[in-house]
């Protein structure tokens, strides 16, 4: 296997980013059964918010000083957009038929893309600052500072979320709301507040993913949320939608599937034309279909048979 460790590492970096985005899909779905198709754009606005902060600081500021401020700016932007979307686009449709908020989400996705596109500056791609240092070598694996950033961010975020959901009062309110919103209200839980928090946490994770993407690829675009959002949604379904660990696992599986298929499918006799990078999305969805055929609830999803 040619360069297997390197390909596994690349899959891990990509998967960590998908996982960070997927958490937002899965949390919102878990609580209000809405597939927030505008979540990819939350990821995008996070990256743009960070870039805006960087531009304001000017090129003379050290990146190590700028990065924390960029994270704050990106997270703040994405969270604001997500909370406004929940308040004004989704909440009025809380009791509407399922199709209404879904269409709204798609509309919001297009709106946010066009809004960002409309800002002055280069339309196709904007240069994102790079982290200095690297490339680093670990055995035969080569990686950049940005790769370390995304892996550390994914691990820390997941640990934080696990602690938050399991051990804090708000986290337990969130679990209760996901299981049975009406009964949660009868316990005294303000379910509207819980829903806002779910959107906000998803946005924080997405913004960190957006910044990771900018750091890794050196540029960001107004439409970067479309494909990444779609893959992250796939990751959420693959892992079992509604399950936060499932979202991370689904992200890793998907990232590895894409990277490994791009690297090795071409060596399978007769498959040489299906192995390029262009086909990696196809293989990712093949994996999704196979998993869903045998485990319709996703890798870590639970069967819905709660009530005795």
């Amino acid at each position, binding site marked *: 296997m040619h360069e297997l460790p390197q390909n596994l590492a690349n899959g891990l970096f990509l998967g960590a980013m998908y996982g960070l985005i997927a958490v937002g899909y899965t949390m919102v779905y878990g609580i209000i059964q809405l597939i927030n198709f505008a979540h990819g754009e939350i990821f995008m606005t996070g990256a743009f918010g960070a870039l805006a902060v960087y531009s304001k600081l000017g090129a003379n500021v050290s990146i190590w000083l700028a990065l924390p401020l960029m994270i704050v700016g990106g997270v703040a932007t994405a969270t604001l957009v997500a909370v406004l979307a929940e308040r004004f686009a989704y909440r009025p449709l809380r009791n509407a038929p399922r199709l209404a908020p879904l269409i709204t989400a798609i509309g919001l996705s297009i709106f946010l893309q066009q809004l960002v596109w409309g800002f002055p500056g280069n339309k196709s791609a904007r240069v994102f600052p790079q982290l200095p240092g690297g490339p680093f070598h670990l055995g035969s694996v080569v990686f950049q500072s940005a790769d370390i950033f995304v892996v550390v961010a994914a691990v820390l975020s997941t640990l934080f979320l696990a602690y938050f959901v399991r051990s804090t009062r708000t986290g337990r*309110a969130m679990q209760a709301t996901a299981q049975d919103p009406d009964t949660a209200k*009868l316990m*005294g839980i303000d*379910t509207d507040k819980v829903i806002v928090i779910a959107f906000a946490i998803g946005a924080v994770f997405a913004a960190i993913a957006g910044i990771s993407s900018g750091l890794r690829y050196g540029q960001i675009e107004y439409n970067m949320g479309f494909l990444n959002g779609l893959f992250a949604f796939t990751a959420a379904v693959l892992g079992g939608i509604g399950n936060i660990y499932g979202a991370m696992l689904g992200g890793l599986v998907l990232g590895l599937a894409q990277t490994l298929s791009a690297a090795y499918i071409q060596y399978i006799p007769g498959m040489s034309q299906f192995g390029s990078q262009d086909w990696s999305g196809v293989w990712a969805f093949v994996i999704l279909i196979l998993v869903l055929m045998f485990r319709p609830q996703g890798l870590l999803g639970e069967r819905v048979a*709660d*009530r*005795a």
Partner: protein
Amino acid sequence: MTALLEVEDLRVAYGKIEAVKGISFSIEQGQIVTLIGTNGAGKSTTLRTISGLLKPAGGTVRFNGERIDGTAANKIVGMGLAHSPEGRRIFARMSIEENLQLGAFLRRDPAGIQADMDRAYTLFPILGERRKQAAGTLSGGEQQMLAMGRALMSQPKLLMLDEPSMGLSPIMMQKIMSTIVELRDQGMTILLVEQNAQAALSLADRGHVMEIGKISLSGTGADLLHDESVRKAYLGED
């Protein structure tokens, strides 16, 4: 003596269909009051409106002298009105302990919460034995105990129970009914919705018969138990 709960001309509608068509009743401190009636009479809708899950289309609800119609459900429970919903609705994927803790969600007194949890375990020892177990693994009767215990964790002044006997074995039903009396004897005020009219009326201080959204008959539990029309319609006699 002022009533703890006063419902006046309450109307509730699902879209254009009126499910509760102007009912009035009140509950005095320390009483067990029951609403009986067939499926679809509007009993659960009445409870869901009192606890704030549904908004009334008209009328007033006063609890402890304060108007609560239109107040959000999560605020009403903090005022001392607990609702154990139809079908028990326990949080199946959480442990028994976590379910009870959620019942005390608005309380900030860890020592008091612990004391009330111990009280729930004394009232229902099976819950104490299985406190770490997922609530979904309990039997129907045990889940009912958990639902009642959870409602009590908010330290309510009024406990509303919706069909606690539903789907239970006769022995388990006996246990639940005797617990309701035990709670009343300790000073709890209870609004009990039941399809099992015999059981409900025999322990209630007052009863109201609901028929298609209206109260058709009211009286003491004993009166209704011996009322001929009630016996015909709800106690299976002819």
